């Protein structure tokens, strides 16, 4: 039989045949080993025959095993990253969220969000075709001093939740859409440092009319920071003057949102760039 010595790591016998003493010793060791193993296997019965109790070992504890899953990397981790290339909002096919007053979506209950993911087909079919005027308005609205990285915007009614969501159980879907209505297009100046923004909050009281438009509003609790309050005022003024309708509330919630004063608190935390 050919033995590949590269794989056979046993110590080799010296050149020549195995000696007689070595042969007898090897056989004897093998016999003793076999007898020892057999003895160990028969040990419990031996104890029982002698009237000695053998305490069986405790059963193994079965623990919950959590399968570890690892993220599959698309490229070697130790390489330097690529640059995030800003997406210039020049494609008039892309839906735009920046100015709710300019949204012409006939169905105010469907969110118009700017995201790389494909929109629901149903909503896409209902969206009116972009006109040249609207394309220019969208371009001007989205143009800034320099291209910004297009972030994923929240999508109302998304089954997987929305950006900024803090709960893992479904809450009030309409409250989320109502909140998104007031958040969409609200911006604060970059001169407000993150540490300052985190602690700023201003509360407005809004009254929605029967036509689902903002009938009146007032700044009930200023934040104390003029620029932050100005951003909140600008947002409410834009929504009011634009005559934008809030998403239609469900019948059972209509009285909670229409025809009564509704406090809305604007907080500077989690500002997005």
């Amino acid at each position, binding site marked *: 039989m050919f033995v590949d010595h590269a794989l056979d790591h046993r110590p080799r016998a010296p050149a020549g045949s195995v000696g007689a003493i070595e042969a007898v010793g090897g056989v004897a060791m093998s016999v003793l080993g076999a007898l020892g193993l057999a003895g160990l296997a028969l040990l419990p019965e031996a104890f029982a025959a002698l009237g000695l109790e053998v305490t069986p070992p405790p059963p193994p504890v079965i623990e919950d095993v959590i399968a570890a899953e690892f993220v599959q990397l698309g490229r070697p*981790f*130790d*390489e*330097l*990253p*690529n*640059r*995030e290339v*800003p997406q210039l909002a020049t494609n008039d096919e892309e839906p735009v969220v920046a100015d709710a007053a300019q949204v012409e979506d006939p169905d105010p209950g469907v969110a118009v969000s700017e995201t790389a993911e494909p929109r629901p087909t149903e909503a896409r079919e209902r969206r009116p075709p972009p006109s040249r005027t609207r394309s220019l308005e969208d371009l001007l609205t989205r143009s*800034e*001093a*320099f291209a910004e990285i297009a972030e994923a915007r929240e999508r109302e009614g998304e089954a997987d939740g929305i950006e*900024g969501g803090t709960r893992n159980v479904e809450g009030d879907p309409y*409250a989320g859409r109502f*909140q998104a209505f*007031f*958040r969409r*297009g*609200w*911006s*604060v*100046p*970059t*001169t*407000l*440092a*993150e*540490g*300052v923004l985190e602690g700023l909050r201003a*509360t407005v*009281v809004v009254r929605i009319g029967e036509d689902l438009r*903002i*009938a*009146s*509003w*007032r*700044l*009930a*609790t*200023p934040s104390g920071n*003029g*620029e932050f*309050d*100005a951003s909140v*005022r600008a947002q409410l003024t834009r929504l*009011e*003057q634009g005559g934008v309708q809030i998403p239609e509330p469900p019948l059972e919630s209509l009285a909670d949102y229409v025809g*009564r*004063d*509704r*406090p*809305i*608190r*604007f*907080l*500077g*935390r989690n*500002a*997005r*760039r």
Partner: protein
Amino acid sequence: MTRLPAVLALALGALLVGLTVRPSAGQSEPTPPAAGEEEPLPEGVPVIEVDAPERALYKIAIPNLRGSGGAPAAEVIRNDLRLVSLFDVLDARSFVANLESEGLGITPGSWATVGAQGVVKGEIQRASSGRLRVEMRFYQLAEGTSPSLSKSYRGPPQQLRGFMHDFANEILRVLTGEAGAFDSRIVFARRVGPGRKDVYVASWDGASVSRVSEPNGVNMLPNFGPGGIWYSRLTETGMFITHSRAGGRRIIDGDGLNMGPTVCGNRVFFTSTRDGNSEIYGAALDGSGVRRITNHPAIDVSPTCAGGGKLAFVSTRHGSPQIFMMSTSGAGVRRVTYRGSHNQTPAVCTRNGQTLVAFTGRSSGLDIFTVNLATQEYTRLTQGQGSNKDPAFSPDCRMLAFWSSRGGVYVSSPEGLNHNLVIRGAAETLRWR
């Protein structure tokens, strides 16, 4: 003709007055409460919280200053605020305000119409002696018609740019709580011919580029420090360290190469091969008390101050050039960069508790990267834009300068946005203070 009773007439008049003073559509808010005052909220109604606003550039209007030289003076401030990547400087052609009648004041409605959130006004007066008197104002429309900032400047005409930089610094202080660094300078080396390299210093916006080194030989690796601009000068036998006020005197000399000075506090740190290997050394500012900081058979070069009694440097001790940090005593050496195979020329800045290290990385060419020490998040600032190297942070950490083969020294935000060419021509080993 029957006359209306007086009471009925009064009632009708009151009704008419009430109708005329009723707020029109789009102006729902009455006089808002003063800061700190609160109006009662509706009881029993849950409050809807709205957070995560977008960040938008602060829209600021900067018309030309009144008086002779007002246009270029205003352009200095516009350039400062445009490059710091926090402002949207509005186009002066869109202004509708009557600047002549406004003078140094503002008509808020005219500026709100063009979307301005802040307005800068100024006036230059020239005395018979030639000295200037400059009055500057900054208004925040959110704060009313009183200026948030007023400053007066007096001095010779050549100081006008400095006045404008100072006012821009103060605008940042008013808006952000921290002054800008628009009066700072960038120092760099430039090859001017065979066997000739000079050290230059320039205003960060590219104005007033001037040579500071001897007009001969090879001068390189400059940095700021007491005594002016420190730099290394090549000789036939090695390299020594001097500064612009030393008159050619050798501050730090020795066998081999002595180069790349960086002054941290009251000590200067540099690279030297005096012991046969490239190591980091420290010395007093007069060159005395030279003490070796690193002790490793690998190559250790490019020390730079990292704040908090620490140095960043480049070492090949792990096989390839990587960025490391250690204390100025040489203790606590730890590797900083773990991505990329060739990282060098570190620059360190700490802002808002976050420490960023900028470096030149090799990834299909030379490009600029930053790594956040706490989060180990890497950001690439350049890609597919020629070769880019030798980054330097501004003193306030709001901007990053680097040389680019696109034509000279560029300035961008630390995130790599808003690239702008500020100094044309060759430049290497930049430092900014």
